């Protein structure tokens, strides 16, 4: 190994080349990129091997590396040529055959290089030249070396020439690219010439790899600065060759100057035989172009013609433009035409699609606008017909009550058909109803199963109208023209109209159902209102009746009771004891009647929610004293004894005093009535429950008591426990019911325990302070309805 000053620059050249390989490879789809990458590989190889050659001082090693260099050396010119050809768009030159030819010389060179020792065709006199601190290889060139050199120069020069030509022809836009490329390629060439012909200032140093460094740098600059390979100039004539338009160039004397392959195909002539002929002769086969060409120098219009090769109508776009030279002189005309049939077809399809959407949109709008059902259905039939180009359409609806399908809308020839009703499976309509599938008849006029015998209609299609799984109707169109038929696309489109029709029918059904429901509800409401009115009227009538009745009853009773009193006074005065006792009976019966009337009135008030509480504080002791005094005659009547168990000062109470008195009087008088020679005990005490004070009144007797059954209806209105002590009617049968109502109104209750022959105990629990509650809302009626069940247990 040795330390040559040339090693480092050579390695630098290799590195630069590698960067070119990478950059070119990244752009490999671009024309010329792969060839450029190959060039990079060749130079990199060459430079690397050369660096190793320079680094060695031993002749054998140097010889090895020199040989290695040649892999790169032989490839580089070829790769360059390939790059030039591809870059300028002349790919067609690079045939397989051409590639083989180009590879021939380099392959022979390589073979000779590696077998040089045997024949010396490449080198002779290989030795080392001492350069002072290092040695360099030198040799005398053999005959094949010059063949190789000439070949290489040829490749490089040809490539350069191609690029140069492109440079001269290229628009300004690409000129910088081309300049750069040319510089890049001429540099290695110059370097090589200097080395081979010993013109270099540095003896024995091959400048070619260094020149390649410059060239690769130039190319790298091109990558970044001028988007080399990104934007590639394309030959103009190539463009015209490849255009899908027919292009024809005519000179001022109407002679054909040029035309492209498309035009050649159309004009049925090859350029070779047509160029130079009169344009009128050439356009003979295209009269449609010729007649337009004759008239004008400039035109842009479309025309259509039936082409003989496929027998189909084709659309063309024709443009004729005048050509002027730089001095503004008329030099001829450019005729360009283009087959636009596909575009026309697409346009027509789009237009048709738009019409479809429009028709669907309009029918949807009709649907949304809540027109009446018939006009919606009519819109659907006529719009669908208009889209298909027919006025003959119908729509029939299934009548669920008769299980028939009934014609609802008829247009065109269908209007002349009889108004039909069909069974399931009958005719086209009935069949579609039965199967639920669209059915298309190619010729209805001759269809054996037709419903209408005499028909002018031919192709006919019918679509089921589906609501959920149910077929609610059938909708159809027909053509009167025998040659027309329904395509699957048309049937599919009609299905969409069918969906809209089904929706309209469903909406109408729902609407009418809703209407019915609404009417039903209104009727129910009216009935309820009437019932309520009647009930209220009845209630008012009842209340009025009761008030009047009590008044009417009270007036004669007042007289009866009054006179019985007055007469008692007189009878006593007259000493007639018998009269007195009889008059007392009248008075007692009257009193009973009065109590009954009063109770009925009380109950009717309770029931009407009109019974009110008059709350005020009162002394409990005074109330008890008053009660005892009032009840005493009744107690003594059946030889009973009254015990009062009460604290010395039972305190006061805030409640409705009248009602409390009435409750206690009622219970005490009941106790007296059902007890004979017994004891009646009234116990009063205060308790505390849930932070509230309660007053308990317990009325216990030792009387006849009650059975379970009797207890169960004890508090019901008009229920009376039979068998009072003296077998007389025991009371009004309302006292307990009223008492319990009163207790509950005040937030308390009455409970009872009893055993036959062992007496009864009634307990009244009332809050010490009664709170006013909202007006009694739901008091069970005593008339007609009675409160069922046991008294509510409320025993704090």
């Amino acid at each position: 190994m040795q330390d040559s000053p040339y090693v480092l620059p050579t390695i630098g050249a290799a590195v630069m080349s590698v960067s070119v390989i990478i950059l070119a490879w990244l752009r490999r789809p671009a024309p010329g990129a792969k060839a450029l990458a190959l060039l990079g590989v060749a130079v990199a190889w060459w430079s690397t091997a050369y660096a190793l050659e320079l680094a060695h001082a031993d002749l054998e090693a140097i010889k090895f590396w020199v040989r290695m260099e040649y892999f790169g050396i032989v490839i580089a010119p070829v790769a360059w040529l390939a790059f030039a050809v591809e870059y300028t768009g002349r790919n067609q030159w690079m045939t397989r055959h051409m590639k083989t030819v180009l590879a021939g010389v380099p392959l022979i060179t390589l073979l000779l290089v590696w077998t040089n020792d045997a024949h010396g065709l490449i080198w002779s006199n290989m030795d080392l030249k001492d350069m002072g601190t290092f040695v360099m290889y030198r040799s005398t060139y053999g005959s094949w070396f010059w063949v190789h050199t000439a070949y290489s120069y040829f490749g490089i020069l040809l490539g350069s020439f191609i690029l140069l030509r492109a440079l001269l022809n290229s628009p300004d836009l690409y000129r910088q690219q081309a300049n750069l490329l040319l510089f890049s390629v001429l540099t290695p060439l110059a370097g090589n010439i200097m080395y081979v012909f010993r013109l270099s200032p540095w003896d024995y140093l091959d400048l070619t790899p260094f020149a390649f460094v410059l060239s690769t740098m130039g190319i790298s600059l091109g990558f970044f600065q001028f988007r080399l390979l990104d934007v590639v100039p394309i030959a103009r004539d190539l463009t015209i060759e490849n255009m899908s338009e027919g292009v024809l160039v005519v000179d001022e004397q109407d002679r054909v100057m040029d035309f492209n392959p498309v035009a050649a195909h159309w004009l049925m002539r090859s350029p070779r035989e047509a160029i130079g002929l009169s344009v009128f002769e050439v356009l003979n086969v295209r009269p449609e172009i010729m007649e337009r060409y004759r008239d004008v120098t400039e035109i842009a219009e479309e025309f259509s013609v039936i082409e003989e090769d496929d027998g189909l109508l084709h659309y063309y776009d024709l443009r004729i433009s005048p050509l002027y030279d730089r001095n503004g002189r008329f030099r001829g005309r450019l005729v360009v035409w283009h087959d636009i049939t596909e575009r026309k077809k697409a346009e027509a399809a789009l237009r048709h699609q738009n019409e479809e959407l429009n028709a669907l949109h309009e029918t949807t709008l009709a649907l949304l606008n809540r027109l009446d059902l018939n006009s919606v259905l009519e819109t659907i039939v006529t719009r669908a017909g208009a889209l298909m180009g027919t006025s003959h359409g119908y729509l029939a609806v299934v009548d669920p009550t008769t299980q028939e399908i009934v014609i609802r809308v008829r247009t065109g020839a269908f209007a002349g058909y009889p108004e039909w009703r069909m069974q399931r499976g009958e005719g086209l309509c009935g069949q579609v109803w039965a199967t639920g599938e669209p059915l298309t008849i190619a010729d209805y006029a001759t269809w054996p199963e037709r419903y209408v015998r005499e028909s002018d209609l031919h192709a006919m299609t019918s679509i089921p109208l589906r609501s959920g799984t149910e077929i609610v109707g059938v909708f159809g169109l027909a053509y009167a023209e025998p040659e027309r038929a329904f395509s699957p696309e048309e049937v599919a489109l009609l299905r969409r109209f069918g969906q809209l029709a089904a929706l309209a029918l469903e909406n109408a059904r729902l609407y009418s159902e809703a209407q019915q429901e609404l009417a039903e509800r209104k009727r129910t409401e009216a009935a309820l209102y009437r019932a309520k009115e009647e009930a209220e009227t009845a209630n008012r009538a009842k209340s009025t009746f009761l008030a009047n009745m009590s008044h009417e009853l009270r007036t004669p009773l007042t007289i009866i009771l009054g006179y019985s009193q007055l007469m008692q006074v007189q009878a006593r005065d007259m000493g007639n004891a018998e009269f007195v006792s009889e008059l007392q009976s009248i008075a007692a019966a009257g009193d009973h009647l009065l109590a009954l009337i009063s109770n009925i009135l009380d109950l009717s008030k309770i029931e009407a929610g009109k019974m009110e509480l008059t709350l005020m504080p009162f002394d409990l002791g005074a109330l008890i004293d008053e009660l005892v005094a009032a009840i005493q005659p009744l107690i003594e009547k059946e030889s009973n004894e009254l015990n009062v168990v009460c604290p010395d000062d039972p305190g006061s109470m805030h409640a409705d005093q009248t009602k409390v008195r009435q409750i206690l009087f009622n219970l005490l008088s009941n106790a007296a009535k059902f007890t004979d020679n017994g004891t009646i005990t009234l116990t009063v005490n205060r308790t505390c429950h849930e932070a509230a004070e309660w007053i308990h009144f317990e009325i216990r007797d030792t009387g006849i008591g009650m059975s379970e059954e009797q207890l169960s209806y004890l508090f019901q209105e008009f229920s009376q426990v039979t068998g009072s002590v003296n077998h007389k009617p025991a009371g009004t049968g309302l006292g307990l019911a009223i008492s319990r109502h009163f207790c509950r109104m005040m937030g308390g209750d009455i409970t009872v325990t009893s055993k036959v022959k062992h007496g009864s105990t009634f307990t009244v629990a009332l809050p010490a302070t009664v709170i006013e509650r909202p007006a009694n809302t739901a008091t069970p009626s005593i008339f007609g309805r009675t409160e069922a069940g046991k008294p509510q247990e409320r025993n704090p």
Partner: protein
Amino acid sequence: MATILVVEDERMIRDMLLRFLEMNGYQTITAANGEQALNQARSAQPNLILMDMRLPVIDGWEATQQLKADPATRAIPVIALTAYAMTDDREHALAVGCDDYETKPIQFPKLLVKIKTFLEQANPTDTAS
């Protein structure tokens, strides 16, 4: 002898009241409605009025209110006669200025005590026989 005005639209009750009062030695005059009652009270100046409340033409409450508003009749005690169960009637009666009330059916002994009391208060010297 004290004169008592009986205002009552029910003839039989009115007759009964007259009989009761005459039995107890009072002079009586009568009215069948509120308007007559006002006229009688002003012209005859009775010592006491027994007034039914539910009356035609002018009812007992209205009539009492007018009597109590008139200085000429203000001093005459008015005992309202109301239906037994009609608590409202009673309170209403006291509110318009009735001096007391009794319920129908009438407890004559009780009513007699009240009449005597009012007459004694009005004229301690001229007590009824």
